[in-house]
């Protein structure tokens, strides 16, 4: 390989890094992750007992850190949703 081509060629590692970050963020929280799926279903069931929510508006995500995992639960409750319990 010519030394000039070597200098002209863009570095590929930064792209690898970016693609991995996007992919893994998705894979860590998507189906197939048993725990997240289970938590999502059970959390949804508990909320549904008291408030009407759209199942698609509930996101459960796990982010990993060196020492702990952070479980993020995001529930969108529509204004005026019937509150069934006191």
């Amino acid at each position: 390989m010519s030394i000039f081509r070597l200098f002209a060629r863009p570095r590929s590692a930064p792209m690898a890094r970016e693609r991995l970050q996007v992919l893994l963020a998705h894979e860590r929280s998507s189906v197939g992750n048993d725990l997240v799926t289970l938590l999502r279903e059970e959390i949804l069931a508990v909320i549904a007992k008291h408030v009407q929510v759209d199942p698609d508006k509930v996101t459960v995500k796990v982010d990993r850190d060196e020492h702990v995992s952070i479980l993020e639960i995001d529930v969108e409750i529509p204004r005026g949703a019937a509150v069934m319990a006191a």
Partner: protein
Amino acid sequence: MGKVVVVTSGKGGVGKTTSTAALGAALAQRNEKVVVVDFDVGLRNLDLIMGAERRVVYDIVNVIQGDAKLPQALIRDKRLDNLFLLPASQTRDKDALTPEGVEQVMADLKRYFDWVICDSPAGIERGATLAMRHADMAVVVTNPEVSSVRDSDRIIGLLDAKTMKAERGERIEKHLLLTRYDANRAERGDMLKVEDVLEILSIPLIGIIPESSDVLRASNIGAPVTLADAKSAPAMAYFDAARRLAGEDLPITIPGEKRGIFGKIFGRKAA
């Protein structure tokens, strides 16, 4: 009670067996009692890398099925008398290892050895989950390359979900071992950087093993690289990783960091 370590990766061919042999021998070279256990049933290779292939009589499946006692299946290393191998069988029966059998073998080995190092098969199926099941610590072997990093991420998820420790709500100690690291390619920007892999996987680094023909040479003669050539770059990196595994706090060095293009042109011996 000894510590159980699983050497795992998800992806195949990244250096699990090489690392199991090298770390096992390195710990034994520190005078600890070590057994390396081959979990790759059907595709055993650890016996070959350890240079013990002609001495295998019984294997882990024979022990689990009651055809042999554990001490009969253990092979003592010819060079280090505190290093042992428990070989895998060549059977194609995937269910030859039972969860109860593995539990019993692990419990017995832990009583006699300081370190029980389990060489996991590739993949995320039964063989890999059985190998990690009783581990106190995991060495996640990763190459600085996209598919290996992705598979390591899957394996880390499994370690946090499917091990006994995880199920008991305890934390399984996980360490990243970066292998087949090529300083020249890293310098050119065509290999994922150490920091990138660390940031993506977020587990602590236990060592960086350079890509090296010394590894191939060691496997040809049937010796862990730390025994074949203790002064070689990969051997030194494995010695350091073994010390960190044993709890020592050492600064990490990136292999061949200083070696530039001139080293290559003038043919200095590669790492």
